């Protein structure tokens, strides 16, 4: 801490803080427009923050002057007042002053600063600068160039944070305006952040335009449950409807940014297609709305009849409490062992090894590590917000980035090294990395990655997909990451609360707290097989539609058709549920939920209800408790989500004693609580990895190797949000130009992709970076999803 003087008072602040921030330690506000630390170094463009520093003849910009010991700063003398007033006057001469019809009115920094630091009069009587307005900068964002004060924030964001390089300033001087480089709409995964960055009403959300004024609305903090990123959000609520989603800056989780899905998919909360009442399948085979009592008793009857022949699956935003209750019902009341929350099976031993608190990295570690290895995952699709965090680390802290993946990554351009392996060979490549790290014989690719990580420094963060499995722990150990603060593993689960669900015991081979079970049950794939053969007669689906979310669609179709009872908790009647469910419960939208989630880095976060339930909706834990009682589970009464959490915290030793209070608004990592010592020790045998021969990315003898991925836009919320409908993905097959040439195919051509008698149609998308011999299709689509195909080698031919 240093001492400096501001407006005649001695103030203490950390050294080298920019003056505008240091001034806050003395309760002095210096007005700013262009200054936004999230955007990187200050640019000093708006000149709003001019202050006087004794010993420097010219006024200085407080946003770019680091505070020093003994500095004497004046922000309230005539000279500074006049300068700041002049800047406000300059900014307003071309501003339309249309506050009464501007969306930003009431929450506008330009209004506030004009009021606080402006002269309150105008001497400008010339014609103002005019632009056509408002224009669609994109289907999501309206741009009003007359309101723009040219502060550069959005341009800097596009250039230096999102790195999509689309926004630029065209022309110069007083004729400058913000535009995209090529005149095309600004469409990018993180484009919506510029709406919140804009300090005036120049960039406004098209879905929110003219929906409310700041005095109509209230804000409600919660967590987005659409992907494992679990970004903190504030819902803007008017009359019990969510009208907008804003970031709620949490540096430990999201760094104050949101992806466009998280920002705009709230629209799906208030659409007619949502399931808002319980339904059962009537005599005519149609789902009809019924009372809760009827639905609950039908569900209870179905479950009781099936008994141990029940298979349960959970996904998407299922909370810890819901998962915990369901696994109790399935195990204790029904006597079944068949439940799973994972897309691909990862054994308990492997999960123990990769969840070991001594090996865990946190999200901010991505930014400050010496090196980051992204292994078999595509951040922008799998855990979107980390994409920005990784870019930040590389750009600002010179983090060395290595990427090992089957499909080319959008981060390749930022990487010091990128290697490709064949689709599905993630675990095998991880094993090679382990060998390389131990100095054993390995492939060149693996050796070069390990060399890069070692050269960069000791703090390495490995961001990897859960499916890579146990080799991750071995790799972290071989790289010496155990017990290293700022280094370790960050494992991306296959669903938004994947980590929470597995830790509360929603696994075939582990109970609450990853405790061992006497006899393991079936994993998701085996549940499908068992249901298809009739060994399982009731399927219970929480936030998951196997036809869309899981591989082997055909087998799931058989399973769902054959099962006598299919109970689904869902928001939308997706295909599998529409056609096969016998009882449907309305799931809650995330703005209605009350419960906890566990972030992939172990942070428990609270999802808090911002609005009441739509239609006949009820809290998930309430429904499950009711259902549990009806099937004979002896539960102490659950009257609030807090009680549900307390019961869960009793059962999971390393969550012991955690309360909603302790979680609070920013969450808490369980690894940082004393109870973490109760985490079961991983079996030593589990780190014994035998390197498997890796399938190189070279072409197979015949056909093409198939890889699949799930786009950030592949979700029912996107399909049902009117604003996002234009982003709804259609099936395309990404292939190398050389393969396309060989097959006589061109970009944009319709093709059929087939194997084992199954086929999907797709459009050819040529990508130079795709390794020859591999093609990639999308999963999670409403139609033509890649999970129709059953093998790993496909044929492609013209449709």
């Amino acid at each position, binding site marked *: 801490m240093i001492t400096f003087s501001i407006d005649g008072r001695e103030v203490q602040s950390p050294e080298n803080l920019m003056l505008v921030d240091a001034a806050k330690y003395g309760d002095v506000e210096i007005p700013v427009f262009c200054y936004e630390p999230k955007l990187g170094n200050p640019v000093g463009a708006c000149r709003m923050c001019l202050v006087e520093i004794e010993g420097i003849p010219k006024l200085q910009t407080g946003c770019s002057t680091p505070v020093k010991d003994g500095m004497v700063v004046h922000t309230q003398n005539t000279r500074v007042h006049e300068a700041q007033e002049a800047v406000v006057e*300059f900014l307003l001469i071309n501003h339309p002053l249309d506050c009464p019809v501007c969306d930003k009115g009431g929450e506008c920094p330009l209004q506030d600063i004009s009021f606080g630091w402006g002269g309150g009069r105008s001497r400008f009587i010339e014609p103002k600068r005019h632009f056509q307005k408002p224009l669609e900068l994109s289907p999501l964002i309206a741009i009003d160039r007359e309101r723009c004060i040219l502060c550069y924030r959005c341009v800097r964001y596009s250039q230096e944070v999102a790195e999509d390089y689309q926004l630029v300033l065209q022309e110069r001087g*007083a004729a400058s305006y913000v535009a995209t480089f090529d005149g095309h709409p600004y469409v990018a995964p993180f484009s919506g952040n510029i709406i919140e960055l804009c300090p005036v009403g120049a960039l406004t959300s098209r879905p929110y335009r003219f929906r409310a004024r700041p005095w109509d609305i209230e804000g409600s903090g919660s967590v987005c449950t659409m992907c494992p990123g679990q970004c903190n959000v504030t819902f803007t609520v008017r009359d019990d409807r969510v009208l907008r989603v804003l970031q709620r800056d949490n540096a430990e989780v999201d760094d104050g940014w949101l992806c466009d899905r998280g920002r705009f998919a709230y629209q799906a909360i208030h659409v007619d297609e949502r399931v808002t009442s319980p339904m059962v399948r009537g005599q005519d085979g149609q789902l009809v709305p019924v009372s809760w009592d009827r639905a609950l008793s039908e569900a209870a009857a179905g479950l009781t009849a099936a008994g141990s022949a029940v298979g349960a699956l959970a996904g998407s935003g299922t909370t810890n409490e819901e998962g915990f209750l369901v696994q109790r019902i399935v195990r204790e009341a029904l006597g079944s062992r068949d439940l799973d929350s994972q897309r691909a099976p990862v054994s308990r031993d492997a999960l123990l090894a990769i969840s070991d608190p001594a090996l865990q990295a946190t999200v901010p570690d991505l930014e400050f590590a010496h090196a980051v290895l992204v292994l078999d995952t595509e951040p922008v699709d799998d855990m979107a917000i980390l994409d920005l965090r990784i870019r930040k680390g590389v750009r600002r802290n010179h983090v060395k980035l290595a990427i090992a993946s089957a499909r080319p990554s959008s981060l390749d351009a930022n990487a010091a090294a990128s290697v490709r392996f064949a689709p599905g060979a993630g675990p095998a490549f991880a094993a090679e990395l382990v060998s390389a790290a131990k100095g054993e014989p390995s492939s060149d690719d693996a050796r070069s990655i390990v060399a890069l990580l070692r050269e960069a420094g000791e703090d390495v963060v490995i961001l990897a997909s859960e499916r890579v499995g146990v080799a991750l722990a071995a790799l972290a150990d071989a790289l010496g990451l155990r017990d290293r603060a700022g280094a370790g593993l960050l494992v991306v689960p296959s669903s938004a609360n994947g980590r929470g669900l597995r830790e509360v015991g929603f696994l075939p081979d582990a109970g609450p707290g990853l405790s061992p079970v006497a006899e393991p049950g079936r994993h998701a794939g085996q549940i499908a097989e068992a249901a298809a053969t009739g060994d399982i007669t009731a399927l219970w689906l929480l936030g998951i539609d196997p036809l869309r979310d899981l591989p082997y669609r055909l087998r799931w179709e058989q399973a769902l058709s054959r099962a006598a009872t299919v109970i689904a908790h869902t928001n939308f009647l997706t295909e599998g549920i529409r056609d096969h469910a016998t009882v449907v419960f309305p799931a809650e939208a995330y703005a209605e939920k009350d419960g906890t989630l566990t972030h992939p880095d172990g942070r428990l976060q609270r999802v808090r209800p911002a609005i009441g339930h739509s239609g006949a909706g009820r809290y998930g834990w309430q429904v499950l408790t009711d259902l549990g009682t009806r099937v004979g589970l002896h539960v102490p009464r659950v009257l609030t989500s807090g009680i549900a959490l307390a019961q869960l915290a009793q059962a999971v030793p390393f969550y012991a004693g955690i309360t909603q209070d302790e979680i609070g608004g920013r969450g808490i990592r369980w690894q940082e609580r004393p109870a973490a010592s109760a985490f079961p020790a991983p079996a030593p045998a589990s780190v014994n990895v035998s390197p498997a021969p890796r399938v190189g990315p070279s072409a197979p003898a015949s056909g093409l190797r198939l890889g699949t991925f799930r786009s950030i836009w592949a979700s029912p919320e996107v399909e049902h949000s009117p604003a996002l409908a234009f982003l709804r993905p259609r099936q395309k097959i990404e292939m190398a130009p050389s393969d396309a040439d060989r097959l006589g195919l061109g970009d944009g051509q319709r093709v059929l992709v087939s194997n084992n008698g199954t086929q999907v149609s797709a459009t050819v998308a040529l990508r130079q970076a795709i390794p020859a011999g591999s093609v990639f299709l999308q999963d999670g689509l409403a139609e033509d999803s890649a999970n129709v195909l059953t093998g790993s080698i496909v044929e492609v031919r013209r449709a």
Partner: protein
Amino acid sequence: MNKLLFKDIDEPGLNTIDVYRRRGGYEQLRRALSMPREAVLNELLASGLRGRGGAGFAMGKKISFLPKGALDIYLCCNADESEPGTFKDRELMQKNPHMLIEGIIIAAYAAGANKSFIYIRGEYVLQADILDAAVLEAERAGFLGENILGSDHRLSLVVHRGAGAYICGEETALLDSLEGKRGNPRLKPPFPANQGLYQGPTLINNVETLATVPAIMGMGGDAYAKLGTETSTGTKLVSVSGHVKRPGNYEIELGVSSREIIYGLAGGPPEGRSVKLWFPGGSSSPVLTGDDLDLAYDFDTMAKAGSMLGSGAIIVVDDQTSVVDVAYKTAYFYRHESCGKCTPCREGTNWTVKMLERMKAGEATPMDLDIIASVCDNIIGHCLCVLGDAMAMPVGSMVAKFRDEFEEYIEARRQESYLGTADPEPELALIQGAVA
């Protein structure tokens, strides 16, 4: 007076290496390379040579600010000569490119730079072609490249053509432009000496400054410092333009009287006219009047008189020209060239032009003069770079020094406009339904 920069300037073929060497060219480079770097730097420090681009910062001191270390040091020659009235660098580069190149090589040696650039304004096509040819000749002769003249000094020199933006003459905008970005000024600090081109330490000097270096090496820094005044040493190229009989570039010793330059060398205004005002250092310097003609022409005297020596471009305006037109032309240029990054310059230049346009249209009042003066005050010292000041200083000084003329002009134009001829008592608007 002995000419240093313009010695032999009209010698035919001086732009070729043969003629230049016959005239003693590249001998100073040989001598400099035989000396330790520090000795060369000491000569430059002793010469007291101040930057000729506009700011007048001591060149030797600029070199000594460069951090010592493992970082690559860059040298950039600022040949983006775009200031209205300034055309000295053009003549130097066109007629004697090798003197500049020799100066660059010696300065790079003193600064420890191994990569150098000449950023030349896009409109200087002929000069850029000449420089390209000269650089090629110098490379072939072994003055550029590895082990120059057998020493351990190596230097590459690239001639980079700008795209025609005045702002790229601002040193940090020049660096951005050179890096391939939009040429916008950067926030200072960090100064280019610490973080310049590609974030490396960078020495940026004007053409004339660098071209003076061989002469300093030839006569010795101390001898050079004896020329001119104590704080404005040496000789200076002055571009005289406007209402004079003999416009052109003149080499003068700093400290001569301004009258000697304007009347003596350039011949003064045409017969029967007198000097109304003059810009002593390019169009961005506050104007001086006919009363200031006896001031000594050097950095300090000009600063004391409330103006600046700037790039050494004297623009003379005689008594037949309206000061409002001069102000308008000046303001219009800077509005056009403002990059738009910082608020006061972007909005202030635009506002000033609009007010002056209104004066010309006869729609202004004397109150507008107060607003112009206030707008100029609000720009000066508040901008990211000096472009805003470059408009506000001359326009502000014109309004201050010629207020009476402005007011007369406003009234005369008002009389001519519809405001002057309008019926003083406008007809009352008819109320609907009323009978007139």
